[in-house]
């Protein structure tokens, strides 16, 4: 349900709010691209691409600063209430989270230097690739949920975070086995482990975005709601 079915009486205010949502979407797009191209760059040892990603992170940071600035300006000038207030505050949080995800991508891209002359074998990086896809899906879904204020989608993203964590654990174990098998794999696997970690953290930030989407729509905190739901389920089970 779109809480903003009707338009604001003051057109310029409405435009500002639209701009803000557009900025978030754009930033989201930039960040998604950053994550996927960073993994690609790492797995294909593309130094050039890596440099580009590092530079691109500056743009992402700039974007976050701009969103912050606009949000503060709107609070001062428009005295937003209710839904508008939640939208602006959430946008600040989401921009923050997106910036952190951007940093994750930067970290992954940095790894390219360290894997000079190494070849990654598909057996090893397939897990990471899979995790990348899942993480990207999380990011995309959470941003979609935010843009369309879809509470169900938001809940889905939050629930799937366990999956992401589980994925990381399994990759961790797998790579550990490979490292134990052959010490020559250690460099490769360690780098992949770092990637996995970054991806897992990116996933967490996506979850934050989903929680922001839920808050935007309902004004309530999703973790608290989920806790309560879980407690209720447990009670029912016990009974």
């Amino acid at each position, binding site marked *: 349900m779109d809480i903003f079915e*009707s*338009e604001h009486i003051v057109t310029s*205010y409405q435009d500002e709010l639209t701009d803000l949502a557009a900025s978030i979407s754009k930033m989201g797009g930039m960040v998604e691209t950053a994550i996927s191209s960073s993994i690609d760059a790492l797995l294909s040892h593309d130094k050039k691409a890596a440099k580009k990603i590092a530079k691109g992170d500056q743009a992402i940071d700039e974007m976050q600063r701009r969103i912050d600035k606009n949000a503060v300006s709107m609070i001062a000038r428009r005295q937003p*209430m*209710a*839904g*508008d*207030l*939640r939208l602006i505050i959430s946008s600040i949080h989401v921009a923050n989270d997106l910036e952190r995800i951007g940093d994750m991508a930067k970290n992954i891209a940095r790894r390219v230097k360290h894997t000079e002359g190494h070849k990654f074998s598909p057996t090893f990086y397939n897990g990471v690739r899979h995790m990348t896809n899942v993480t990207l899906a999380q990011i995309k879904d959470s941003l979609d949920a935010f843009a369309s204020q879809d509470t169900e989608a938001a809940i889905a993203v939050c629930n799937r975070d366990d999956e992401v964590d589980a994925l990381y654990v399994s990759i961790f174990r797998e790579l550990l086995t490979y490292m134990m098998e052959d010490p020559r794999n250690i460099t490769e696997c360690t780098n992949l482990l770092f990637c996995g970690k970054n991806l897992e953290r990116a996933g967490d930030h996506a979850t934050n975005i989903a929680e922001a989407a839920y808050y935007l729509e309902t*004004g309530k905190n999703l973790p608290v709601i989920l806790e309560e739901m879980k407690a209720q389920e447990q009670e029912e089970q016990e009974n």
Partner: protein
Amino acid sequence: MSDKKKNIKTQKAPVIKMRGKGVDVFYGNKQALFNVDLEIEKNQVTSLIGPSGCGKSTFLRCFNRMNDTIDICRVSGELTLDNQDIYNKEIDVVELRARVGMVFQKPNPFPKSIYENVAYGPKIHGLANNKTDLDEIVVKSLRRAGLFEEVKDRLDESGTSLSGGQQQRLCIARAIATRPEVLLMDEPCSALDPIATAIIEELIDELREKFTIVIVTHSMQQAARVSQKTAFFHLGKLIEEGKTSKIFTNPLNKKTQDYITGRIG
């Protein structure tokens, strides 16, 4: 059985000072209020918000029976002060208005001296036995209204010689001089500049300690700043009411949301 600790915050049960139940108000054949239920809590500031013509002023004026002065106005339903029906034939409306004071939108001090303005109410209600008592009441009321320091040297000057903000504070002093229990304020700051408004909002906060206050306001920011409980009216109906912080961050009703974000007039 669960041995889960239930987090129950112990709260004081709110004391209801005034209540309206099923209140309908008619101006001739036109109905202005439809079945309004609202409770006013003691020592709290309740604000009534809504677009023009939504009936909030009409509802406010029910509480001190000022609607009686309009011939074609008819009020039905239950309106109580301390659980006493205020429209009961046995209630003396003059006594009611001493207990429920009112401050109006446009400052309207009497064209008398500042002293006389404040002293008039206590005099006619017999609250002072002699001049000394009366002086005391006047000084106390002016102090409470935050006006005493500014006018203590010129109590004999006309009330209309003051600035707008001072006049409104004089009207507040006049209203509280009769030792009311409830103070009704009908857009008290709409004719004042921001500084005067701020002074009066601070005053409202201080007065909350001793009085129950109901304020009608057009400014949502003011309602958000000043009140603890907010009620939203629209086209004569009470749409939503609740804690101010909740109404302004996450209202339940879409109409409320649309109004306070400025999406409908």
